[in-house]
């Protein structure tokens, strides 16, 4: 059967319709039944955004061929509650603030529903295990656990239903745990993200991406692809009518590779066709001739003379160098009683928002080029796109769709330009939805950093001087590298009053996946080094970690490393609060874990090992010596 005759029950309704043999249950639900509460986060069974019940068993619908569901009874997130209502569990998610971006939430609600159906009295450890196949990138899971436990207790009668109510007005709405207004739409799967949106006559885009890291593009032949039935248009850099180039600080990246590719995964061309399969088939017909160029994959190698140059404007491959100088570091080190040097390294990190990039573009009745996408910066994107497509700025419109997680990764206009061009060329609405793999290879990462640290201190812990040097691989394009280097430099040496600092941060072009904005914008890399270094120094000086920080901390009115005079500084309050809440036992920073007395107190969870349900099923707590 190349097509399937599907006959099944979905959310209590009989469904009968044909489906393609290749379809997964996920495709059938989303594309045929428009049940878009079931999301596709990874397509490989790793994330759980697509969890549904099939004959009462929770499964990942991206791992289930639709044929397997034939004849089955399916329950999706849309079918959990009566229309317009919320189940106790959904109400509990609302109450505790368990949804943030919301993209994982339909799957999470399904997994939690499944957990409580399997065991209505499940303890926290078992709940965690049963949620173990569903990834959430926003919440840190904590409020989700709280919601499931709350719902369990309400369902078991241990708590009254009123425990699910929101807080009252109180004396003020500021400082009030008002329940999230967007939560009902997220816990029911009603909220439409860009990839859930459809328009009549909509085309589907697929993108041809570079298989090589650094090469000249000798030619692109799109004729065969363009001639395919079902293909409405094929676009390349040649279709850009205006001044091509985007980026957060420097506009060095073309919408699609222009004569040269600089990283694996860079867009070369894109096809808009009547369906994804046709668009994919057309990609296979595009012929690209590459002439490989020497490539560089290491930031320090890229800084060396004679290294391959990525961008003509930056012959030294430096995207940005930020220097900060204060006082006299040589004098500071001379004055020190202890000098400690150490290097640190951090890795590139993927944003891993559960919503892969997606967008829908069209040209409206007034000729306004409109792009709907989960962009974190519609203002700047509108500016850039207007230039790129050579239209007046009020003929370009960006609509920010609900963002299924951003963390900085959706600040870059990495695909919206292609959508706009295809909509302009075809005259039809065009939608692009990235696969997880495409999202991972083609979009920015957290800047990896190599940091060399030199700190001078007095025996009482006072820091006399710091020399801090950070080299960061910015990858093939500038994106946010300049800003990341700036923030890293400003915050590098931490909230400490240091008279003498010499700080340098360097962002460097290489042929790696570009680095870009990512929650903390360089600050975590730099402060990871500082905070590790302080503990090393505290160990050598026999000081408690809190003490060495108190000795050096900025106080109200302090001057920062950039010589800004601060107003109120709350660091002392934060140190005191964390020390007190954790019941910290004071002592030198010298691997005293084996002897310290403050371990294992309230505020910790139990160490986790799998099998909570096995352990609770043959509970054993009496012991007897035999030896």
């Amino acid at each position, binding site marked *: 059967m190349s097509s399937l005759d599907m006959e099944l029950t979905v959310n209590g309704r009989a469904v009968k319709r044909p489906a393609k043999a290749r379809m997964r249950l996920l495709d059938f639900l989303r594309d045929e039944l428009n049940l878009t509460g079931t999301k596709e986060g990874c397509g490989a069974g790793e994330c759980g955004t697509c969890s549904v019940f099939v004959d009462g068993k929770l499964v990942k619908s991206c791992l289930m061929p639709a044929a397997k569901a034939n004849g089955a009874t399916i329950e999706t997130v849309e079918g959990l509650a009566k229309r317009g209502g919320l189940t106790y569990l959904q109400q509990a998610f609302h109450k505790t603030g368990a949804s943030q971006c919301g993209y994982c939430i339909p799957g999470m609600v399904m997994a939690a529903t499944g957990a409580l159906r399997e065991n209505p009295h499940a303890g926290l450890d078992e709940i965690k295990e049963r949620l173990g196949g569903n990834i959430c990138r926003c919440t840190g899971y904590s*409020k989700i656990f709280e919601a499931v436990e709350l719902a369990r207790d309400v369902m078991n009668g241990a708590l009254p239903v009123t425990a699910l109510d929101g807080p009252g007005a109180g004396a003020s709405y500021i400082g009030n745990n008002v329940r999230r207004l967007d939560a009902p739409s997220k816990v029911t799967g009603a909220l439409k993200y860009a990839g859930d949106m459809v328009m009549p006559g909509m085309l589907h885009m697929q993108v041809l991406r570079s298989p090589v890291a650094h090469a000249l593009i000798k030619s692109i032949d799109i004729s065969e692809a363009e001639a395919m039935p079902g293909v409405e248009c094929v676009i390349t850099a040649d279709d850009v009518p205006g001044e091509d180039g985007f980026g957060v600080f420097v506009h060095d990246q073309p919408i699609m590779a222009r004569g040269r590719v600089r990283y694996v995964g860079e867009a070369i061309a894109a096809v808009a066709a009547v369906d994804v399969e046709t668009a994919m088939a057309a990609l296979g017909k595009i012929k690209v001739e590459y002439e490989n160029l020497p490539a560089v994959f290491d930031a320090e190698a890229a800084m060396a003379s004679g290294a391959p140059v990525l961008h003509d404007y930056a012959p030294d491959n430096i995207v940005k160098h930020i220097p900060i100088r204060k006082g006299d570091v040589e004098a500071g080190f001379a004055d020190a009683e202890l000098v400690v040097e150490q290097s640190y390294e951090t890795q590139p990190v993927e944003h891993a928002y559960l919503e892969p990039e997606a967008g829908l573009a069209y040209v409206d009745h007034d000729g306004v080029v409109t792009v709907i996408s989960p962009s974190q910066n519609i203002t700047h994107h509108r500016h850039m796109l207007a230039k790129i497509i050579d239209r007046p700025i009020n003929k370009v419109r960006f609509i920010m769709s609900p963002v299924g997680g951003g963390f900085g990764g959706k600040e870059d206009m990495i695909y919206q330009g292609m959508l706009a061009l295809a909509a302009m060329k075809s005259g039809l609405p065009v939608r692009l939805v990235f696969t997880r793999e495409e999202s991972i290879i083609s979009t920015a990462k957290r800047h990896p950093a190599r940091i060399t640290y030199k700190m001078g201190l007095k025996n009482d812990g006072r820091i006399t001087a710091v020399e801090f040097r950070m080299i960061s691989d910015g990858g093939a394009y500038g994106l946010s590298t300049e800003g990341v280097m700036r923030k890293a430099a400003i915050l590098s040496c931490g909230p400490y009053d240091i008279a003498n600092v010499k700080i340098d941060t360097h962002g460097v072009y290489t042929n790696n996946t570009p680095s870009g904005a990512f929650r903390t914008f360089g600050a975590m890399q730099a402060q990871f080094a500082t905070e590790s270094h302080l503990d090393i120094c505290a160990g050598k000086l026999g000081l408690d970690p809190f003490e060495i920080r108190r000795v050096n901390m900025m106080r109200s009115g302090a001057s920062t490393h950039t010589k800004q005079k601060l107003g109120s500084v709350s660091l002392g309050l934060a140190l005191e609060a964390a020390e007190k809440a954790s019941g910290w036992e004071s002592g030198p920073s010298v691997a005293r874990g084996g002897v310290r007395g403050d371990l294992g107190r309230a505020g910790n969870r139990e160490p986790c090992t799998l099998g909570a349900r096995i352990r609770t099923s043959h509970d054993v707590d009496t012991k007897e010596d035999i030896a």
Partner: protein
Amino acid sequence: MSRKCRGRGMAASWYGIARTATIDRAGAWAELDDGGTAKIVTGVTEIGEGILTVLAQIAAEELGVRPEDVTIGDNDTARSPEAAHAGATRQTYMIGNSVALACRDARVRLDAEIADHWGVDSGSLKAFDGEIWAEETNLKMTMEEAVDICKKRGVVPVGSGSFTAHGTGLDPEDGSGSPWQAYVFGCQVAEVEVDIVTGEVQVLGIWAAHDVGRAINPRGVEGQIEGGVVQGLGQALMEDYKLEDGHTTTHGFAKYILPTSLDVPQINSILIEDPDPLSPLGAKGIGEPALVPTAPAIMNAIYDAIGVRITSLPATPEKILAGLVAKREQEGTRHHAAE
């Protein structure tokens, strides 16, 4: 030596609020609408942090209505005023304050009409939770009535607000400058357990104390801290985007390993409120800063537990075990022979 070793570590942090070393700006419109409801329009939307709820709370407080009465029109360059980008820990600070200012502007229009209607000084008017009243009088009405009266007098109670944060650029030679007008500070303590058979690290507890200026929605702030901590934990222990000659070897979530429900510690948030004196609300921000101290606090805790200093992230089981082996060799003892 036991097979499971525990330890504790801490780290402090600081962060700047809103865009760096530049003038940041955001705008918003407000309207007190029929039925005592409200419309807020601003050019940026939810990325999951809870900004829509925060804006509704701010609007409710400033306008005297309830959060559920507030409709937020957002996120459209052709229909709403510029709010710039959703990032840089600027949403509550920039958009929140511009919404507060817009609401105050709308209230000026409404209050002038109601004060005149009642014959009282507009400074005596207070509004909360759907009602407006004149202090030290018995004059009180619903916001629905107030809007109706205002409109019958020919005035639509609308307002607009623009908020500015004044940062200055850095000197290109010595980097001096005032990049932000508001700073936040934080501190986290981590407790870990290291399995010395496998090298696995479990983070059992995090105590996270963060200054947020003023918590508009404390539960939302906790959610940001919890999410930040777990992203920090992911970077500390497992996440690693790998490349070989420019080609990734971590294409999907089977290879790019993220924290799941079984990897997260109990997170104990402590909110510190040191209000920002330069803005109407006093709130600062929390989105990014919560992540900063987590990884170093965990590395410091690992060192405390087993005496191995990890300076290269992530601290994978393999690196931990290699560190233990190196340490044993250095100490000339082999724990397996100890029994």
